[in-house]
């Protein structure tokens, strides 16, 4: 279970990007976060695995408080949080197998990583997962030779190799064509079910959010202003999330709406 309480993130002295945000993700649900650009979706996700340093508040994953961790403990906690990126963030010049195994870097020694001496069970697991998402034939191919959809599958397998307790996906389909995009969303939903894994997805495509996720969280200017089943996302809620005057929101009077 992921429990975020009173999370604030501000850059410099400007208005905070995240304003006293509370969010709880339970069980193996697939949750999507929607909202216009700049609403703080990406910052929220990156605060969870501390790629972005939260200013204050608490984030607890299965009993571990993440915001206070440093060094070795932080790395150990990050291993349990898989992340899928919008731009895939694969190492282009390495093979698909090396990219997939890079999800295990937090578990194996640096020496084993440099020498590419991966544990037997990791290699077996990698083939298993690659087979599952349909990229097993590319194990020895360089990552930059693959198409966008295939590259994102490598990204997903890399995250799953971490043996994560939660999967974060930061606009995983924004760089993909509509059809590939649906395949990846379907894959994330199915894998969440198979691996009993909660998944948190930032997404711009509301139709896909409604179709592939169990719960939709709507963000606007650093606050959660909608949190319900996809079926409850009606015209009025969409209006609140995506339109209106930014100045009114920044004024801080919408607090009761969250």
């Amino acid at each position, binding site marked *: 279970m992921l429990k975020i309480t009173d999370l604030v993130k501000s850059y410099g002295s400007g208005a905070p990007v995240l304003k006293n945000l509370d969010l709880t993700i339970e069980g193996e649900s697939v949750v999507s976060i929607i909202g216009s650009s700049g609403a703080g979706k990406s910052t929220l996700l990156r605060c969870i*695995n501390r*790629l972005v340093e939260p200013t204050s508040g608490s984030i607890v994953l299965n009993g571990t408080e993440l915001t206070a961790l440093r060094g070795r403990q*932080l*790395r*150990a*906690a*990050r*291993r349990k*949080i*898989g*992340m899928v*990126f919008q*731009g895939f*963030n*694969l*190492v*282009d*010049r*390495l093979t698909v197998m*090396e990219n997939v195994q*890079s*999800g*295990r*870097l*937090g578990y194996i020694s*640096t020496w084993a*990583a*440099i020498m590419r001496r991966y544990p037997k069970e990791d290699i077996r697991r990698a083939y298993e997962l690659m087979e599952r998402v349909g990229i097993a034939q590319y194990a020895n191919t360089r990552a930059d030779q693959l198409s966008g959809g295939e590259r994102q599958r490598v*990204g997903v397998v*890399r*995250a799953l190799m*971490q043996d994560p307790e939660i999967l974060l996906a930061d606009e995983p389909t924004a760089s993909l064509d509509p059809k590939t995009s649906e395949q990846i969303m379907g894959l994330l939903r199915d894998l969440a079910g198979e691996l009993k894994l909660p998944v948190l997805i930032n997404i711009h495509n509301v139709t896909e959010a409604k179709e592939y996720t169990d719960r939709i969280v709507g963000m606007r200017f650093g606050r959660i202003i909608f949190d319900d089943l996809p079926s409850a996302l009606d015209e009025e809620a969409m209006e609140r999330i995506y339109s209106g005057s930014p100045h009114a929101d920044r004024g801080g009077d919408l607090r009761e709406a969250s």
Partner: protein
Amino acid sequence: MSQHPDTWRKPPFIANPLLRWAVYLGALAYFGWVAATMPIDWARVAQGIERAGRIFGGAFPPSFERSGLLIDGFLESLKIAILATVGGVALSIPIAFMAARNVAPLPVFYFGRAIIIIARSFHPVIVAIIFVKAVGFGPFAGVLTLVVYSIGFVAKMLAERIEEIDFGQVEAMRAAGAPYLSTLVYAIFPQIMPRQIGLTIYQLDSNLRASAVVGIVGAGGIGATLANAFGRYDYDFALAITIVIVGVILVSEAISGQIRKRIA
């Protein structure tokens, strides 16, 4: 009809006309003064031309009689260049990481940059003079000199490449909980590898050239052979050495250019 002007002039380089003319006239006056006051002794220039004529006269035809000495000198230069390149590049990699703003903490960054600036600020000949004083005449001084020279160039260029990497790959490794060194090896090395190889080949070529120069001040190699030939007024041998140096440099430049083109 039209109220718009039909002439246009490019705005002057310095907007203030008073300052503009002051700068132009000041520069002109300075050049005139420098030319008028430089102590050029025309009698000595005439003598120099005569002496140059003697040197060139003595240099023809070039003498390859002592080619054994020439080859030994060259092999020594090659050894100096290879050792210096290996040592210099090996040291350059960690220094480049220290001097890359996006991967090094601020104090380490300043330290790395300082090493590069110091290595770059002296011409190899000056560094060679210092090392010849420190460790004595011979190829070891040459190797040390060219190691410093290599660091100044390779570490700087490599640090700039590291600053240009796609940081998303580093982020992905961090998100997976990878330790620092594993992150470097997986996310950064693959991105900088082509540049690293190119720089190494270029530096080998460059060190071979520089080894001829630093030899003149006593740091071993073909440069030392050349300086000795001059010292003994063997101008024909000196010309032979010079011809070979030019030939070898042309060949090495062609080879390194070809290799770098292939891997780019």
